[in-house]
């Protein structure tokens, strides 16, 4: 059933395309049935879960990698599943009004459904790999939603940052989860949770935990990774309300809560989460106060709340889990509503900047009422649900398991954040609806359509309704969720009115009082210059880091990959020396056997000495013709070597090859300039010479060693013995060619013949008018030279004239400028 809900949500996503054919508000109500069905599906199962049992379904998927479709529904999952599908239903309805008339609405619904399916997958998965897959799928699908239509010009930088941080964080999470699973011996989350003792003692605990933290912090926008969330606010408002406040950003919090029973109660866990959570809470609240953009304000207030939740996951104590789940519920209700209402204001007034709004209370009275309700809840004013949550929060921090000093700091931080929360809630409401009206962006601002207010209305009214009458039911819903976090049964009883005047109540009253007193100065506080130096800004640091990495790698690549074949060969040869000589040096080779030098004769010495001499001459030759001719000497000497070692057939072959290559050289060089030009500096030539000598020496050394090792008898004896008997011939070479190696010979002849045919075809089929042919047939040489130059210029192999291949380089290549300069504006 759980499997069916998640998968059908993904599989049925394409029906969202129906909206393309009728982009009218009604379609939202029709498509809303999809998430509603999921909501009902979970609600039906709620009683069983609330009674304390856990539903588990397993279906093998890729058993080879330990990946199973294993879903479980316990209290925590149920809470999230209900939120995801319930708010999802409202968002579906809201979207139809928000995007009414937009031809792309169908796509939007498809992505929304995919997102919802994957979010449900995250909160229901009971297999770490499955969880990870859905986790990444939420990143990807959220991206499709963000990219649907960008409201900001500066959209892509933010979106890129968001995707990069969450996908990168996801990678860290994967490694962390796999380490954890290795330590626990299972990929199933329920079993990992059961192995808490072992895990905390395992050497993998610290790395795994840190990696998981990284994943959770990036997803849940914790300081200093929070920068992506405000940047993602360019998404259409339904997506912001759904993903960036009610559901997706809570995935990190969810995972921390999920793993809480197994991994918590170590100093690493407690203090990392406390410090990160508290910092995020304060930074978010402080920045929210200064934001002019409504969505920006809401985004930072979300960051602040997410920090608070992480703090609750960290501090420990009996009450923290209760506060955590209450906050999750309260925040989803009021922040979802606020986002949607902000969207409505934006939709009607054409702007969402506080400085361009104001005095809308007359035009949009209904919106005002709903916004006020939600904002009061956000500010933690009784008798709204936000107040209940804040009570629990203060209760939790005053009863934490932190050291007294740290506890005191945290209490102070929470109170400050609460005061700031009241201030920004006030700024929001007063800035939109009261005060002097700024010049309107649109001519006739009027109330949002009723249907658009349905979804935020439901959420806002729940913020009122839950504390006024539904608290016992809410407690019953939250109780199994708390149980899942702590790992043992807990009793939860939320109450609106405190029974006694305890410390939390005093703190709460203090916060409300000071907040109310400060509201008069909210404007001034918001306008104060930032106390932080300009460089200490997440966006800037992120940019600098990315820029630094990009420019350094680009510079490096540009230096190495400069397009010059000469350099490529140089680097390759150096690398070759390293690869060959390192192992030889490392393994401290025994002395190679010395070859027998006693019976070397004079002709051998002369021949051998002539070869390096000819090589040197080839390099030094000024004219092309000279170079070819001396190069021919090398070949001739090699052939002569074969003669000395009585291999006339080899000598003959070698000679033939030499002659043919020389002729080819001459043919080709006929269309090149007659003499070389020196283009490289003497130092460069010296360097190249050293490398060449090193390579040559290495190769020669290997030949030396090879010639002194004989591991098997030479085959010549067999041939000599068998030639007459088997081949009926006295000339051994002949017998080898036509008998022993008859097939080889036939193959060689065939190859030669085909090559001949090819050459003939090429020469014949070239058009007569081709000047190259004409030149080769003995026309004027100067033309030929000119042609050669032109040809090379056309081919791009020589940027400067006379830059030629044999001598120096392939020149300034056309393809090699690494055009990465402009890549920098990408960030």
């Amino acid at each position, binding site marked *: 059933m759980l499997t069916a809900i998640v998968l059908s949500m993904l599989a049925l996503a394409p029906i969202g395309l129906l909206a393309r054919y009728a982009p009218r508000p009604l379609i939202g109500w029709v498509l809303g049935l999809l998430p509603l069905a999921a909501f009902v599906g979970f609600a039906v199962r709620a009683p069983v879960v609330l009674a304390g049992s856990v539903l588990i379904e397993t279906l093998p*998927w*890729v*058993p*080879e*990698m330990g990946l199973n479709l294993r879903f479980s529904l316990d209290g925590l999952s149920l809470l999230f599943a209900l939120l995801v599908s319930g708010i999802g239903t409202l968002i579906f309805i809201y979207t139809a009004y928000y995007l009414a008339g937009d031809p792309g609405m169908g*796509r939007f619904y498809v992505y929304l459904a995919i997102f919802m399916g994957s979010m449900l997958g995250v909160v229901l998965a009971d297999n770490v790999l499955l969880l*990870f*897959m859905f986790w*990444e*799928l939420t*990143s990807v699908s959220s991206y499709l939603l963000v*990219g649907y239509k*960008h409201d900001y010009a500066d*959209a*892509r930088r933010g979106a*890129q940052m968001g995707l990069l941080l969450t*996908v*990168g964080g*996801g*990678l860290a999470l994967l490694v962390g989860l*796999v380490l954890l699973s290795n330590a626990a011996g299972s990929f199933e989350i329920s079993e990992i949770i059961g192995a808490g003792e072992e895990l905390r003692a395992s050497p993998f605990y610290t790395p795994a935990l840190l990696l998981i933290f990284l994943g959770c912090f990036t997803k849940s926008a914790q300081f200093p990774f929070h920068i992506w969330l405000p940047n993602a606010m360019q998404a259409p408002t339904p997506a912001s309300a759904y993903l960036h406040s009610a559901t997706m950003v809570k995935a990190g919090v969810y995972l921390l809560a999920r793993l809480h029973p197994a991994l918590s109660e170590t100093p690493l866990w407690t203090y990392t989460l406390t410090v990160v959570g508290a910092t995020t809470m304060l930074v978010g609240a402080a920045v929210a106060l200064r934001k002019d953009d409504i969505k920006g304000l809401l985004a930072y207030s979300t960051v602040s709340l997410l920090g608070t939740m992480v703090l609750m996951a960290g501090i420990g104590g009996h009450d923290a889990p209760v506060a955590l789940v209450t906050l999750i519920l309260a925040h989803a209700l009021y922040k979802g509503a606020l986002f949607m209402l902000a969207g409505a204001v934006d939709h009607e007034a054409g702007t969402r900047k506080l400085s361009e709004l104001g005095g809308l209370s007359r035009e949009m009275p209904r919106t005002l009422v709903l916004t006020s309700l939600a904002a009061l809840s956000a500010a933690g004013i009784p008798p709204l649900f936000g107040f209940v949550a804040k009570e629990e929060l203060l209760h939790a921090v005053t009863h934490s398991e932190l050291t007294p000093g740290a506890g005191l700091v945290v209490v102070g931080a929470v109170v400050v954040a609460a005061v700031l929360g009241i201030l920004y809630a006030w700024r929001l409401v007063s800035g939109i609806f009261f005060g002097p009206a700024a010049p309107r962006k649109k001519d006739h601002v009027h109330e949002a359509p009723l249907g658009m207010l349905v979804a935020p209305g439901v959420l806002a009214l729940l913020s009122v309704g839950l504390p006024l009458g539904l608290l016992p039911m809410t407690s019953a819903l939250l109780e199994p969720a708390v149980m899942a976090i702590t790992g043992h049964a807990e009793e939860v009883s939320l109450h609106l009115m405190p029974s006694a005047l305890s410390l939390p109540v005093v703190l709460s009253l203090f916060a409300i009082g000071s907040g109310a007193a400060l509201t008069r100065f909210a404007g001034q506080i918001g306008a104060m210059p930032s106390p932080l130096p300009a460089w200490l800004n997440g966006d800037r640091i992120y940019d600098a880091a990315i820029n630094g990495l*990009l*420019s350094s*790698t*680009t510079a490096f*690549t540009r230096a*190495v*990959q400069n*397009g010059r*074949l000469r*350099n*490529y*060969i140089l680097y390759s040869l150096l*690398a*070759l020396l390293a*690869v060959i000589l390192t*192992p*030889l040096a490392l*393994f401290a080779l*025994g002395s190679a056997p010395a070859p027998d030098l006693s019976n070397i004769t004079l002709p051998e010495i002369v021949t051998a000495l002539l070869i390096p001499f000819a090589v040197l001459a080839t390099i030094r030759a000024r004219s092309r013709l000279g170079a070819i001719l001396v190069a021919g000497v090398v070949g001739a000497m090699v052939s002569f070597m074969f003669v000395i070692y009585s291999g006339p057939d080899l000598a003959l072959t070698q000679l033939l090859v030499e002659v043919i290559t020389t002729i080819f050289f001459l043919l080709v060089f006929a269309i090149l300039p007659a003499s070389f030009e020196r283009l490289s500096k003497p130092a460069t030539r010296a360097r190249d010479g050293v490398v060449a000598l090193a390579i040559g020496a290495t190769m020669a050394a*290997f030949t030396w*060693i090879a010639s002194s*090792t004989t*591991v098997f008898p030479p085959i010549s004896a067999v041939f000599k013995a*068998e030639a007459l008997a088997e081949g009926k011939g006295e000339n051994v070479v002949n017998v080898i060619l036509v008998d*022993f190696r008859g097939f080889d010979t036939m193959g060689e002849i065939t190859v030669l013949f085909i090559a001949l045919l090819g050459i003939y075809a090429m020469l014949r089929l070239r058009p007569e008018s081709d000047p190259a042919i004409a030149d080769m047939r003995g026309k004027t040489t100067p033309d030929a030279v000119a042609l050669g130059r032109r040809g090379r210029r*056309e*081919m*791009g192999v020589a940027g400067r004239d006379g830059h030629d291949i044999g001598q120096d380089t*392939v020149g300034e*290549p*056309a*393809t*090699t400028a*690494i*055009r*990465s300069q*402009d*890549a920098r504006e*990408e960030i």
Partner: protein
Amino acid sequence: MESLQIPPVDLRLLTPLLIVVGWAGALLLIDVFFVPDGRKKITGYLAIAGLAVAGLAGIPLWNLSGSTFSGMLVLDRYSLALTWIFLIAGALSIAVALDYLPRHAIEQGEYYPLIMFAVGGMILMAQSADLITLFLGIELLSITLYILTGFAYPRVASEEAGMKYLVLGAFAAGFFVYGIALIFGATGATSLAGIAAYLGRQPFAPQEETLFLAGASLVLIGFSFKIALVPFHMWTPDVYEGSPTPVAAFMSVGTKGAALAALLRVTLALEEAQTFWLPILAVLAAATMILGNLGALGQSNLKRMLAYSSIGHAGYILLGIMVAAERGAEAFLFYILAYTLTNLGAFGVLIALEQRGEAAWSIDDFAGLYQRRPLLAVAMALFMFSLAGVPPTAGFMGKFFIFTAAYAGGLGWLVLIGVLTSAIAAYYYLRVVVKMFMQEPVREVRPELTRGLNTEILIAGVATLILGLLPTPIVLLVERSLVALGG
């Protein structure tokens, strides 16, 4: 003394190879004599048909195994699985070229048989159990690729690419052959089995094996050039950028895949010498993963970026080869398949954007693609996610298999580098996605989707998804295909 005997030859074992090469030869003639200019697509379709026939002919061989030509060529399920992968790669590369060639006015019928010969070379490499036949396969593949790289004559970049590839390729070939000679001098064998037997006769003592070490290193360097392992990778970006895009696509998966497949066999044969062999591979793998991905980071030319990315991926695949004796070989096969399909898909999208006379390879040309061609953009996003290793795509599964196999095989530090470089890689892959989805078009690029291209992108996209969502059947197939290797 008994008379010299011609060793028995069982041509059945080479059926796909013979079909591909034979068909290619025949097709050359058919193309010249029967296919009129301007309708060279017919040759292309015939070539695809030939590859398909070869693939079908391979099916009955699944339960057959054996060696022929004195053990120089073998047929086992490993080689057969690779054969199919190569046939798919070849067919897809032809499919994308059907309209590419005429659009760029370089339509010549020879393109298609040349691709077939290259595929033949790859199959030969997969079936080689001897360094000599392996070299034969490499050269058959390389020489056709030298021609194909310069196929866009008279485009300067294409000529230059062909030239660079040829010169460096010749170096590589020289090293490879010299390496074979030295190995032969040391062990008296060129067959992998013979070398393994030589190494196995007594505990491996590197200090007494100078010649063997030198030979093996040279052979490895030859491989490194073909696979484009850092620091022997330098030709790759220039050559990919210069060559016609379908050829670059083919090279990025073909040469690499075949050379890696052969390297895996060689690595298994050198098991006794792993104290010497694995550290070199480890260093090469680390350098390849790091520099390949860092190189891609700064690129704004997508073709070059894909070139660097293909270098980086070779590094990951190398991890699988290093632990081939354990589960690495399976991971290797899966990764090769996933990478082949994904990369061909990405190149397919690139080709769709390319128009005659101008190359739309700048990342800016992808800006706003989502608004104009949502499906094409989604497909490209899928390929980018797969290359980056984001689930639920083939690339994720491949990376997961490779990394877990390498981790289990004790290569923890290499896995760490792999994961870190994957994070870096995510940046440049996702940047493309951002461009497509988030930005307004910078200039007018009208993607042209033709039938061949559509089919190719569709196949690649669906396969990338299916391999990511339902990898089990393929994993089972891969597992079964390694019975013969003892993996």
